[in-house]
């Protein structure tokens, strides 16, 4: 099974998203039952951290290039096994996900015409290697101005894909994260139309123009989810001022039910 990389701007919730994946031991999706098992030490540690940090009302530290992460080999590498059981008497389908979590600044630096320094170049090169089957791009902003920034980043990313001969053979799942937000939640059912075409039109058009249709999908996902989908759709999160502006914390650990977190990875991994 190939590797998947998760990229996105700073504070788009990449590590928290992966922690939710490690924490959500069992999920129900329509008639399918999904069982997630962390396979390597790093994903087990992430599972523990989800319990000790997120469930205890704190947020993760940002993944930054610096003292701990100096090069690509220092990046956390998570490995999960997901068993998909589609119903009684059906064979369980196992998939293995190997995921790398990239620092947000790597994504943001893509927009610069010449990748600013060696380290960012190295990160992007690793992200576009041949054994990477897909790339999950987590985006959060939808307000005015975000579209043009994301379009610039995507155009440049597509150029880099082309240079590495990955334009036709790398799946991209573009996901709006933190979809529990009131403005986003109603658009989750048809994210391509109601979120991406509407709020990020030029970025979406650029992607659709240049990436083969079968290699591009749009998703909405929510790591924290809402309190109760039918009766209390308030976000299961609290926003407070933190070190770098607004930070989000889980509101009610007992009600924690992430939304749509496996689908993008499943598609990246299997194409189904």
């Amino acid at each position, binding site marked *: 099974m190939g590797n998947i990389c998760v990229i996105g701007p700073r504070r788009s919730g990449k590590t928290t998203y992966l922690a939710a994946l490690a924490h959500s031991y069992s999920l129900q999706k329509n008639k399918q039952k999904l069982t997630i098992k962390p396979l390597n030490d790093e994903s087990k*540690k992430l*599972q*523990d*951290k989800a*319990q*000790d*940090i997120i*469930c*205890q*009302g*704190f*947020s993760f*530290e*940002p993944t*930054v290039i*610096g*003292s*701990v992460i100096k090069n690509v*080999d220092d990046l956390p590498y998570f490995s999960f096994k997901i068993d998909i059981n589609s119903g009684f008497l059906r064979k369980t389908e196992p998939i293995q996900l190997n995921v790398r979590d990239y620092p947000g600044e790597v994504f943001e630096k893509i927009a610069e015409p010449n990748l600013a320094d060696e380290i960012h170049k190295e990160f992007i090169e690793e992200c576009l290697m041949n054994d990477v089957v897909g790339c999950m791009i987590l985006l959060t902003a939808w307000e005015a101005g975000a579209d043009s920034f994301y379009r610039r980043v995507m155009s440049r990313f597509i150029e880099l894909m082309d240079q590495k001969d990955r334009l036709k053979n790398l799946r991209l799942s573009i996901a709006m994260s933190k979809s529990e937000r009131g403005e986003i939640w109603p658009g989750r059912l048809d994210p391509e139309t109601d979120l991406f075409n509407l709020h990020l039109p030029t970025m979406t058009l650029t992607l659709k123009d240049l990436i083969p249709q079968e290699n591009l999908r749009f998703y909405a996902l929510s790591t924290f989810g809402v309190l109760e989908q039918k009766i209390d759709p308030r976000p299961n999160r*609290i926003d*407070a001022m933190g*070190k770098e502006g607004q*930070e989000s*914390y889980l509101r009610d650990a007992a009600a924690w039910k992430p939304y749509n977190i496996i689908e993008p990875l499943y598609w990246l991994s299997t194409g189904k």
Partner: protein
Amino acid sequence: MHRPTIVVHLIINIYLILQKEANLGVIYIGDRSAGKTHLATELANPNNNYVRVNSSYFKNAPTATDAQNSIYNKAMELQIQLPSGNKQLILDWIDTPGEIWRKHWQTEKQSEWQHFLNTLKQTEGIILVLPPYRQIITANNINRDDFITEKQWCNRFNRWVNFFRYECPQIRHLLLCLNKADLFCDYEQEGQKLGYLPYNSPLNWQQRNSYVMQRYFRPISPQIQQLNQSISGLSVRCFITSIYNRNLLELPWIYLGSFLN
């Protein structure tokens, strides 16, 4: 053909892993009479809640770090009960005498001072123990003049801010512990309010931090903000501690246990 390369890679990787492990030290520092040694010694009390210290050296530990005795460096093994299970942490406890911050001490013990600075440069977690200031004291049976004023306290903290900014670029967790809570608040009530339970804590970490910060650290909140912004990746968290309340005593360590690998 490729074996020597693989061996070299392995050696480099092992070196990098060891180097990474060595960087995970936690240092315990503070001004004179802040109560650093007392706090750590009390932590070893077997009547624990969620933090247990496995270390025999406390038996011979002095009640205050002798100024002449310089830096006191020992490994400290902690077992912390977290929701995900028990976590073992081996920490470097570097307890410094208050005098270490005085110019004459730094000149007289230049090599020790340099060694200390080098250790700090690699550390990821620092517990800074602060004494209470005169205006915050509410206890009656105590001479308030023995404590520094709020202004002096703020000035001293400014010195720490500069120290951390220039000497500790790698620091990821800075825990500010306003010690001797028994002198400035109803520590039993606060202990109950802030106390940690693995599953049903009355407050979560974020709520605890804002409560303590707003209530007890207000005079230095601009400096805390400045510190947070000046060192990339640093989280500054505020605690109150007392040797008379186990809940308050254990909180900083539980916090570190949750975050450090």
